[in-house]
């Protein structure tokens, strides 16, 4: 990266600026800080307005003048976005802000962490088979993570982490960083699974599997669906099979059917019976009916026992989302023959569909406040961990609530859709840059060995921001490439 004169070439856009130390590129967003490319977006102040459900208002835009109020509602919350950071953090965090909330002096330590070991957990609401567990997930051909567990009708992916970001090849690290950054900034990313599907993931949007938009999430597994709808099917049809790659349900054998006094039908299913009316492995995983590799549902029915079944027996086969369904009547030789779906059953099929929630992709950023980052907050980093554990210190990321993992360190996860736009950045290390804030009482901060001499009142920060942000209308105004 380093050129003569310590100029850096920035590759964030095609202008490809050479940036001198201490200067920014043509965009004013990327700068050369001691030979390292960093993002210098202004802080974004979030107004905590509960009423608008997390609607985020950029600081002083839209012609609204700041009234000078610091703590009157709506309270500005200083986020770490654009705070900048140093690594290693032997210096105090760039902004340690105090304000007075309910008469208690609060301190928020605001920094941007550089996360070289971070990753994202992706939850994809789909029954379709994306790939085998442990299969490699690729972006632009590079391995960026793997398929992990399937849970409740969603397929989980685990992407990034130290093994892809820094321990893989150079290109692997770069592509992984890019993939994480795009996912965290809520952009669409195409991923492919080895021996599996291609899926376009965008946080908060439906997944696109092999070019098909996934509309709905199933209401439950096949067995659960039987339980939910048994009453509506009883007396209207002799047998119902809810086709599901995970657990296929059969009404007449299922506990729910038994309780209603459903008559045996002598149906013989393929696959392995787990408990009555619940079948595993009726087919191989795929992208057909109920996430199995079938387009004809009869493929999973081995036949009917002639001693039990009878000609004219009726059977509904339906997938867990209600998207596919077929109705059959047994002929004289007890072979199912497809027939039009009776009106009274159509309602139940539609109800399954209606109960399926929209399928979405969710992306959780997972980062950890390592000892180095914690040192930017306090002289005795482990005390910060303890303080967080004791719930004396609140951790947020770009103002958004985080989930903190139990166990060692401060490892957190945050829903990327709760952060302001483009809250994430990167450094070419490669690593992701993300905001993190620690909020605690001033006296608690002193007790844990905080950099109390660096605490600045919120009003100072707001003023300073105003100064830095002649760009305040940043999002509003600036920018031209004239050099």
């Amino acid at each position: 990266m380093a050129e003569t004169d310590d100029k850096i070439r920035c590759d964030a856009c095609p202008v490809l600026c050479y940036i001198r130390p201490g200067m920014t590129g043509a965009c004013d967003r990327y700068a050369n800080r001691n030979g390292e490319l960093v993002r210098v977006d202004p802080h974004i102040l979030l107004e905590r307005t509960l009423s608008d459900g997390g609607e985020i208002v950029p600081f002083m835009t839209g012609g609204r003048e700041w009234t000078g109020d610091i703590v009157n509602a709506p309270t500005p919350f200083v986020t770490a976005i654009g705070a900048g950071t140093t690594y290693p953090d032997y210096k105090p965090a760039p902004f340690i802000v105090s304000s007075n909330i309910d008469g208690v002096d609060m301190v928020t330590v605001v920094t941007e962490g550089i996360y070289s070991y971070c990753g994202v957990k992706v939850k994809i609401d789909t029954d379709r088979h994306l790939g085998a567990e442990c299969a490699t997930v690729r972006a632009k051909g590079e391995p960026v993570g793997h398929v992990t567990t399937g849970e409740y009708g969603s397929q989980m992916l685990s992407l990034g982490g130290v093994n892809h970001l820094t321990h893989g090849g150079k290109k692997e690290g770069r592509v992984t960083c890019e993939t994480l950054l795009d996912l965290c900034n809520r952009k669409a990313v195409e991923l492919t699974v080895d021996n599996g599907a291609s899926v376009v993931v965008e946080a908060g949007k439906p997944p696109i599997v092999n070019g098909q938009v996934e509309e709905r999430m199933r209401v439950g597994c096949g067995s659960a669906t039987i339980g939910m709808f048994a009453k509506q099917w009883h007396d209207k049809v002799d047998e119902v099979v809810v086709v599901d790659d995970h657990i296929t349900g059969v009404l007449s054998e299922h506990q729910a059917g038994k309780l209603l006094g459903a008559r045996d039908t002598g149906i013989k299913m393929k696959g392995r019976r787990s408990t009555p009316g619940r079948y595993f492995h009726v087919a191989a995983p795929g992208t057909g009916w109920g996430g199995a590799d079938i387009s004809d549902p009869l493929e999973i029915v081995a036949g009917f026992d002639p001693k039990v079944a009878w000609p004219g027996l009726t059977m509904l086969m339906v997938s867990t989302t209600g998207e596919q369904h077929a109705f059959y009547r047994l002929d004289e030789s007890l072979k199912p023959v497809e027939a039009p779906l009776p009106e009274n059953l159509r309602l139940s099929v539609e109800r399954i569909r209606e109960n399926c929630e929209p399928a979405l992709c969710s992306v959780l950023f997972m980062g950890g406040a390592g000892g180095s980052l914690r040192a930017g907050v306090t002289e005795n980093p482990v005390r910060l961990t303890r303080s967080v554990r004791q719930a004396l210190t609140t951790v947020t990321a770009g103002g958004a609530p985080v989930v903190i993992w139990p166990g060692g360190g401060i490892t957190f996860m945050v829903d990327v859709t709760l952060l302001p736009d483009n809250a994430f950045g990167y450094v070419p290390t490669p690593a992701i840059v993300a905001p993190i804030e620690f909020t605690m009482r001033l006296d608690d901060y002193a007790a844990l060995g905080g950099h109390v001499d660096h605490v600045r009142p919120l009003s100072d920060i707001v003023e300073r921001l105003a100064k830095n942000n002649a760009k305040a209308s940043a999002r509003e105004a600036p920018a031209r490439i004239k050099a």
Partner: protein
Amino acid sequence: MRQKPQHRRLGDGRLHLHDGPIDLIIQIFGERWAVETAYAAAWRRFQTILDELCVELPLLRAEATPTSARPAGRVARRMADVVAPFCETRFITPMAAVAGAVAEEILSALTDAAPLSRAYVNNGGDIALHLLPGESFTIGMVDRPDRPSLFGNAIVSGRDGVRGLATSGWRGRSFSLGIADAVTVLATTAAAADAAATLVANAVDLPGHPAIRRAPAISRDPQSDLGERRVTISVGELTPDEIDQALSGGLAEAARLKAMGAIEAAALRLCGETQLCGDNVIPAKARTAAPQALLSLDSRFRGNDSPVLFEGGDASRGRRETRNRGALNPTTGSDRHAVG
């Protein structure tokens, strides 16, 4: 790694487009469907603009001469064509018109897409306007982006030939060879206004004055199109006579450009003093009595008694500190019929 172009709607419905160094704020007035159609068209056109320009950057950064090659891209051609008339007598590069040319290109994508009553594309203070004959925009002028307060209003009506407006000055994002705090130019197109504002701002100058610090452009930005030319870094105390002298230099340049037909009007601002160029510029006091005013200045320059939104810039951080050349923001809503 290449960050993709971005688009988002601001809370008040305006569209913000961003790609690399380009930030556009767009507002459209018209039937709802027309507005949505036009916003979509703007976004479609926007996505490739920066890449198109970057392909020809070396040519666009080179000094324009009568024998310069004509670039291939639409926006690049607009830039080259608009600076061409100036290149025989002045140093100029096509980059002097880049912001205006981009604004213009997006504006034409908007107006081609749907019938609109009014629209503007604001590229960091260089603004392309669309106005039907009965419509108008009131535009506030700011001289210190680091300390924005209005020093005047420009009112552009649909009946004028003005469809572009730009501001240049050493305090802005771009380098200037002169010392003007802000030169605002009204012209028939945004690209023309952009190039002309650069020239007029360069001409507001006091060569060799000890209170003015300058540095070679490339010492600040290694790729500057201004090369070794010395750009203004700071301006110290000037006497009233010196301010007058500098402004007259700019005024002469503005008059020359107006005689060439390159601009309609200009407002020049230095150390709190304002000079105007343009026949139909009406002094502030007469403004209300002259609704046809092309450009008028509000004498109520708001000094220290006005709300200060921003603290002064920190000069040690260099030009980038004073980045908000958002000097000009078309006002909207109740101001829409400010004229006529």
